[in-house]
């Protein structure tokens, strides 16, 4: 409970600082946002780690490769989305687009073994 409250307090404080510096010092406000995000992620790190290790354990029971692929893709999507949002926040629209494209490419690359397997099964029907 205290972790949740302190995390929320950090988020609200960072948002206030961000709003204060957005006009006068946009670079500083971006740094505040990034730092707050890092602090927040570090604070929930132990919870995230336990969830992640639980998910990895379940990977063995839930069809191995397919689930591992989904897990990797989820990680990539989350990171990409954060990077894209940061770029948009900094006003770098083209960079945000690039981050989004890179994310999609990485997801496709991570999902490629699965897609290849689907393709192979479909081709095997054709002979």
């Amino acid at each position, binding site marked *: 409970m205290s972790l949740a409250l302190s995390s929320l307090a950090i988020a609200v404080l960072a948002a206030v600082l961000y709003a204060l510096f957005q006009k006068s010092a946009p670079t500083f406000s971006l740094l505040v946002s990034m730092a707050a995000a890092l602090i927040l992620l570090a604070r929930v790190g132990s919870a995230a780690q336990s969830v992640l290790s639980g998910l990895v354990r379940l990977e063995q*029971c839930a069809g191995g490769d397919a689930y591992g692929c*989904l897990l990797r893709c989820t990680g990539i999507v989350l990171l990409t989305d954060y990077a894209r949002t940061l770029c948009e926040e900094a006003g770098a629209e083209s960079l945000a687009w690039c981050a*989004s494209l890179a994310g999609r490419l990485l997801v496709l690359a991570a999902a490629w073994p699965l897609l290849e397997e689907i393709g192979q099964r479909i081709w095997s029907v054709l002979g």
Partner: protein
Amino acid sequence: MKQHGFKKLLFALFLVGTSLCIITPAALALDETTLSGIPGTEQWQPYLEQSPVSISDLADAPLDALKKLFHGSMAAALQETLRGSTDALLFLLLAALLSFLTSETTNGELLDLIAAGGCGVLLWSKLLTLAEQLCAQMGEWRGFLLGFLPVYAGVLTMGGETAAGSAASGFFLTILCFLAQCLTAFVRPLLQCYLALSMACCISTDHGLAAFCQSTGALLRQALHWAGKLLALLLGLQRVTALQLDRAALRTGQLLAGSVPIVGQTLSDVSEAFLAGIQLLKSGLGLAAIAFLGAEFFPLYLGMMLQLALLCGCSLFCSLTGNTRCKVLLDCFAEAVRCMAAATALFFGLFVMGTVFLFLAGGG
């Protein structure tokens, strides 16, 4: 959930139940001495012995006999199906958990696609295994029928039912063998094509493709339903015609035997005792064959029903979590399982109906 296969199964069960009620008194009297005078023991005896439950047990305590018949095999089949399909269900559950993390991301659609692909890959092999089980079972049943129905036809002919004998070893055997051969040859490739099409539906965003895929399955099921009705009608008509012919021949024989003075009456009495034994053997053999096939059919059919229930459950789960791609894919897969179940029920239903017609009509 509309299931023609299930209706056929209920009809088959009804026929078996009715026949059990009718032949109970005769079956209770079944013993070695009753059948000892009938020739060709080495031909028909193995089929009586092959029955997983004895006919007397079935007539005496049907519920206990059915429990004994299905208990072990059912449990094994259910365990096998559950073991095979729970990983797909777990995969979907975990995909839904992950979707909580990515609910506000812009690439959620891509993750849905991957979840659907993963689910498809996991279930593909399970469904193919099910189809292989079906094909192997059909092959075995075909082999059994090729041996059993000529022997059964011989028993019918021995009992004075020449037309019924020719029908059993002719049209009835041909229909069942043709059906079994078609299912063995076509189920696997057809299923593979259907699964490939379903996977294409899941990758494509075109809703028309999924609807086409599902309606193809529904059409096939409808075709099986009508084919079943038509074949049942033909079998029934043939049985009625054969019965009339056999009855006419039997009455002529009795008339001719009765017209011979002194010896005729004795001859008639002996033939009646012999015919009573044959009728008993006819019922016993028919029920033994139904019990033999039923012991293998029910675990297979129940496995399919369980697989279908799991697929429907997964589909419902996907619709609740908003993963439409997975839902569409699972609906297509469920249709494939329905088709396989309908084909299996058609085969078993026809066999049960044909056999029950053969041993109930004409005295049994």
